[in-house]
């Protein structure tokens, strides 16, 4: 469990990135910080592994104030996945994955063995192990980044717009992979994105931020969609544009779901689920869910 207590961050140039932010991030769940640039979402994420220290307030991980922990040691216990993978270009894939365990004193051979297993875990072929990052596609690099983040078997995984730089098809693939991994591993994931659809797809808890690191609304995707707290949130999640107000049209063989402008959003399969019982396991494209229609 990660707890923010009245955390404020003002950068030396005077920018107020985060203003009096308090939140509990439950264990074994995915919490997504979503907002436009300048909303302080990345700053919030980077405060968890002390890449940024708060100006005031405190952050606790499982009850321990991280301000009292040594940053390097703290970071070695937290998985970190960033945009553009952040892999070391001069090290082979396998050595990139084995980097942190070796920093923690694991013998090289063992670290490499475990790195191979991690490549399996993230769905990469072992034949890529001896390639350099520059020889991989963007999506493959991102998978290596996830493998590296998992290498020390951390309880916490920080993901800073990890899928922001890959094309939409690969992104969708990686998102599903992350959900699959999360079902297996049950990490406490903190995920930063500016993409509201990604936030709703991945998040158990979604935190919508407005400029200056102020919380606009916190809740499950369903709660936020059903009850946008104000106009800002409604605009942000797209509820005001009709993008999410879906309805059914019958087309002979089956029902299709269309949005307010009549554009096709998906098809309705199976029975209509009752509100709130939405489950992680099912296909959950935010646009394809009948949930949005119910809320209108």
């Amino acid at each position, binding site marked *: 469990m990660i707890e923010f207590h009245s955390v404020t961050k003002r950068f030396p140039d005077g920018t107020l990135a985060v203003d009096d932010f308090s939140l509990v991030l439950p264990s074994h769940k995915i919490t997504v910080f979503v907002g436009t640039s300048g909303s302080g979402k990345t700053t919030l994420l*980077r405060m968890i*592994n002390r*890449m940024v220290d708060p100006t005031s307030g405190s952050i606790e991980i499982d009850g321990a104030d991280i301000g009292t922990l040594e940053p*390097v*040691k*703290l*970071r*070695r*216990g937290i998985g*970190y996945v*960033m945009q*553009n*993978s*952040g*892999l*070391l*270009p*001069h*090290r*082979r894939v396998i050595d990139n994955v084995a*980097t*942190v365990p070796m*920093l*923690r004193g694991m013998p090289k051979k063992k670290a490499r063995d475990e790195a191979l297993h991690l490549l399996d875990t993230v769905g990469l072929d072992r034949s890529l192990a001896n*390639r*350099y*990052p*520059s*020889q991989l*596609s*963007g999506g493959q*690099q991102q998978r290596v980044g996830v493998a*590296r*983040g998992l290498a020390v078997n951390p309880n916490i995984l920080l993901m800073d717009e990890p899928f922001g730089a890959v094309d939409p098809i690969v992104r969708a693939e990686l998102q599903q992979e992350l959900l699959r991994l999360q079902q297996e591993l049950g990490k406490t994931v903190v995920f930063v994105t500016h993409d509201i659809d990604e936030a709703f797809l991945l998040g158990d808890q979604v935190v919508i931020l407005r400029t200056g690191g102020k919380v606009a609304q916190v809740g499950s995707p369903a709660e936020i969609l059903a009850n946008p707290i104000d106009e800002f949130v409604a605009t942000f999640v797209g509820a005001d544009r009709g993008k999410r107000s879906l309805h059914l049209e019958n087309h002979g063989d089956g029902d299709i779901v269309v949005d307010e402008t009549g554009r096709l959003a998906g098809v309705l399969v199976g029975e209509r689920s009752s509100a709130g019982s939405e489950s992680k396991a099912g296909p959950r494209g935010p646009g394809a869910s009948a949930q949005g229609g119910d809320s209108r």
Partner: protein
Amino acid sequence: MNFVTETVAWLIDPANWVGAGGIPTRLVQHLLFTLVTLVLAAVIAVPIGFLIGHTGRGRGLAVATSGAFRAIPTLGLLTLVALWVGIGLNAPYVALTVLAIPPILAGAYTGFEAIDRKIIDAARAVGMSEAQIVLKVELPLGLPLLIGGLRSATLQVVATATLAAYVADFGLGRYLFEGLRIRDYGEMLGGSILVILLAIVLEGVFALAQKLVVPRGVTAGLPTDIRDGSSRSRPAMESTIKEGTSHVRNE
């Protein structure tokens, strides 16, 4: 007799190739002097350059100071130091170390600065200590530019080391000063040619070294680069991320 025949005559005269004042001895002296000077300059400049490159602080000061160092006339400094410490090799060591510091310093910090900040940031975020970032990330990735700085320093030192003979009976410069004194232009030109040849050889060695120290992951844009060990050269920090295989077909 013109200069060319005089020079050739001087170069092939067996008498010039033996003894304490012979070409091999002076060549070795010159080379050793150059190497020692480079080591001295590197010991001073590399740690400072790494510190500047790693922290991003003090760059302005370094640029200004190296600029001032570059502006110092080496012959003047040499004379000044010689007046102070006396005749011998100490004065040339000091003067040429001062000459060699700016390019090495610049090579050291630009090498670090040229690295994508995201790589450094990621290294820190996964838990590398500052020392580990320097040794395991910045040093290997910045090495090509550092070698470039050493290369440029070497060229300057090997040429300017002729001045050592101004205050000591030492190195290839001796032929220049002696030839000038006794109006033996063949000897002067011969000595110069030897210096030039030495410079070219060292230049070649460094060019090779610079190529070899580029990390393979940085040069390897294509799988074939590893397998056939081709020495395709690419700028050290060029982004070589290529998607798909169209690149292979184009080659």
